[in-house]
């Protein structure tokens, strides 16, 4: 009978800090505890009392890697609270800003965090430049990330804590020279993205467990607007999200967990592809058709393939938008606040659905804030997957190999502990 404990301290190649404890007694997994050890920074409390117009820049500081997602979602919630209808150009620019984020963030995860597992090296820094394949992958990573960075910088002013997006519009619009250079970088990155899809598609890794996939199903796969759908057939409006998400307090973790409709679920690229692949850009559907046949899928490692396909989609749609939009300077929209108002923002961040709910008072100051981040939504699903992975492999591999398999599985989720830890349990009484 197997009896052992697994204690993984400081999981690596992911955003933020987490530990993992697994206990196996008499051949059965007794518990799995994914302990998010990031200290909370209490942004939901900090933002209370701040102006609704400065709140998005503050909330951007929740997370370095997906700051543009927090910025965009907070702006959306603020605009909804204020009753501001974004202009068509503003929506296009929000999409482009998110596309820049997705390209860079997914590429960071795929090339820097997951690819070393695939190649059998500890780090991308260990890749052998005299090996043709490793040399290509290493330098592809720089070119693809650079393209994402350039797009974010062109539209939002910077890839991290971007200064241009604001409540009511954008402070600056892209210039023709910048657009031309960015188009060039995106075109250069496109074939590399297709190679990346192929690389992860051929990775012989599989872990399946039936679960629910949840995400925002946008009509143009732009991550911004739509209805929240689940693979079990639930379809809800953005503003009703709190009626379907149940906050689970996890005593050993500094992050809350969530259930959707009373069950564990997964959000992220795999969920989006499973729910919404038909709305990908037509060029992406054409060039990735061979890979798209694999979706919907329960294989968590296909989250990597899904992210690579999303990079391609972001490149394709960005090229179309940049080539066909005439950007003109627009004034920021503004609305007077005459009463307490609540607004909801829901977007797809790189790791899954991100929810913001803000209440603003007559003074223009935030009175209440609620944020639900993707990794917190995935936490229970990750733990249940690990339990199955360990149980399934008890008789097949030694403990050390199981530990490595667990780390690979967690990395496939692309968790972000920096985001996950900064929220108290939901206390929303509106």
């Amino acid at each position, binding site marked *: 009978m197997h009896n052992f404990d697994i204690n993984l301290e400081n999981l690596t190649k992911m955003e933020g800090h987490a530990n993992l404890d697994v206990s196996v007694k008499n051949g059965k997994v007794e518990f799995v505890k994914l302990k998010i050890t990031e200290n*909370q920074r*209490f942004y939901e*409390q900090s933002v209370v009392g701040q102006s609704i117009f400065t709140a998005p820049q503050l909330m951007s500081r929740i997370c370095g890697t997906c700051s543009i997602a927090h910025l965009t979602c907070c702006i959306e919630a603020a605009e909804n609270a204020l009753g501001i209808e974004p202009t068509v150009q503003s929506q296009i620019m929000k999409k482009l800003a998110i596309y820049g984020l997705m390209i860079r963030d997914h590429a960071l995860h795929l090339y820097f965090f997951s690819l070393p597992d695939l190649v059998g090296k500890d780090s991308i820094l260990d890749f052998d430049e005299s090996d043709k394949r490793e040399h290509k992958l290493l330098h592809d990573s*720089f070119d693809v990330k650079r393209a994402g960075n350039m797009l974010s910088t062109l539209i939002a002013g910077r890839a*991290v804590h971007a200064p241009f997006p604001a409540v009511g519009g954008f402070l600056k619009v892209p210039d023709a020279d910048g657009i031309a250079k960015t188009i060039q970088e995106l075109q250069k990155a496109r074939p590399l993205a297709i190679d990346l899809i192929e690389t992860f598609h051929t990775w012989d890794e599989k872990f399946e467990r039936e679960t629910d996939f949840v995400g925002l199903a946008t009509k143009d796969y732009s991550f911004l607007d739509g209805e929240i759908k689940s693979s079990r057939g639930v379809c809800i409006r953005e503003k009703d999200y709190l009626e379907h998400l149940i906050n689970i307090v996890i005593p050993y973790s500094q992050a809350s967990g969530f259930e959707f409709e009373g069950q564990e679920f997964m959000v992220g690229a795999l969920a989006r592809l499973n729910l919404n692949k038909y709305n990908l850009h037509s060029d992406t559907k054409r060039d990735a058709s061979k890979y798209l046949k694999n979706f919907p899928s329960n294989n968590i490692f296909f989250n990597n393939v899904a992210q690579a396909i999303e990079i391609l989609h972001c490149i394709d749609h960005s090229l179309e938008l940049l080539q066909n939009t005439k950007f003109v300077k627009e004034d920021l929209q503004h609305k007077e606040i005459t009463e307490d108002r609540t607004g909801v923002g829901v977007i797809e961040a790189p790791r899954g659905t991100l929810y913001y709910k803000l209440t603003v008072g007559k003074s223009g100051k935030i009175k209440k804030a609620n944020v639900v981040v993707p990794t917190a939504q995935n936490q229970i699903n990750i733990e249940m997957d690990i339990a199955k992975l360990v149980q399934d492999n008890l008789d097949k591999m030694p403990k050390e190999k199981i530990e490595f398999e667990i780390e690979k599985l967690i990395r496939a989720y692309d968790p972000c502990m920096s985001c996950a830890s900064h929220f108290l349990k939901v206390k929303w009484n509106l």
Partner: protein
Amino acid sequence: MQECDVVIVGCGPAGLSAAIFCGRANLKTVVIGLPQKSQVQMAMHIENYFGFPEGVDGPVLIKKGIEQAENVGVTIIVDEVVAANVKNDEKNYFVLKSSDGQEFVCHALLIATGTPIKLSGIKGEDRFTGKGITYCVSCDGPLYKNKKIAVVGNGNHAAESALEALSYTKDISIIGNAKGFTFSSDYKNELEKNGIKLVPENVKEFKGENFLKSIILWEGTEMVFDGVFMASGIVSALDFAANLGLEIKNNILVTDENNMTSLQGVFAAGNCEGRCRQIAKNVGDGCNAAINVIRYLRSKELYFDYVHEAKASDNVINNNDFVKKIFDVKDKKKKVRIGWFSFSCCEDSTIIFTEMFNDHYDKWKDILDIRYIRAMKKNNDMKNLDIAFVEGAISNSKYEEELKEIRNNCKLLIAIGSCAIIGMPSGQRNEFDDEKKKEICSILEQFSYRKDVVPLHDVVKVDDVVPGCPMAEASFLAVLNKHLKEFGIDA
């Protein structure tokens, strides 16, 4: 046959110290030796070597020395030299042969073979080495303060050890040689004057359980001691040196003030050259010998010209210029060891840093040895860093301890971004009103947070900062390049 500028024979403190200097001066350097046979390797714990207040284990010191030498391009061959010959042509050179048949050709030879201890072969010696039996009075004498000790051996070496032990205890016996001792008359008088007991009997066995307790003499007597110092004779590892016709006196090599032996191009350092048998002295010896090796090769135009920056034609060099020159030589192999750490923050600067690889990888791969970056690798090592970059504020005592550990393991600590420099925005809770504090207090208690979130400089000394939220790329590059220069790298 391998060509190199210098072969160093011996893999102890003198040899490795010399190797580090030769490697850094871009001499093609090969060390041949058996580190496992170094006397330091047998030292369980060294407490009198500079820079290690807690002491350091002998094997650890040797391991680190090898690592440091390899980091500057030195080749370490774990083997014995079995033959050495001089070839006299227009440029003198030496041919050495190792036991596995490899041949090495060099223009300078540095002998740092030490004085490997000849084990007595007495029953129990192996078992109690480091557990009551030691080989160096100056190293281990303090462990036996006012205790009863024996020096096992014969001749002046045993007498010298016994007299040295007087600094620690008066109860000293020399045991050895049933045929009588062979001390010189000076030593004999000193031993007598200081009441050192002489036991002219051979030792049969060392006894004890976990630690040495007694000595059994051949005639059967059991003598109880707290500790034993072996001074049963030292075999020189200079056998091969005899082939070269080097002058040897009292079992040590005769050298001049430049560490050169009687044969031009052959140098010696460490115990094989005599004087006190201490690691500190031997490390210094290695350094001195190496500088003289470098000077010799360059002034005689004898080195294999691997270094373009220091041409042999520059051989009219006065001492100061010369020393400056060898330290200024641009070492293409040298890398600065860096670590990247994060505490309470959004890791925005970590993201900026990873993105900077897009444009700086080709340069950084040659000059940065990234030893610790949790975001990018699993096998991380925070020991002996040149520069630690630290992002984030300190919000609990665990982070505080980790930060102190980083500080203890780096030469420079650089605070990255606003949270590390001013504690904000991570420290917003410091400013919360009572109502907000009440909301968060259960979390603070449950996970043992600090009362306040503080910037790094409240906990440790910070040497430099890169401001911004996130850090600005240009500021980071400026700070990085400034400090790389201090480590001799012109980025």
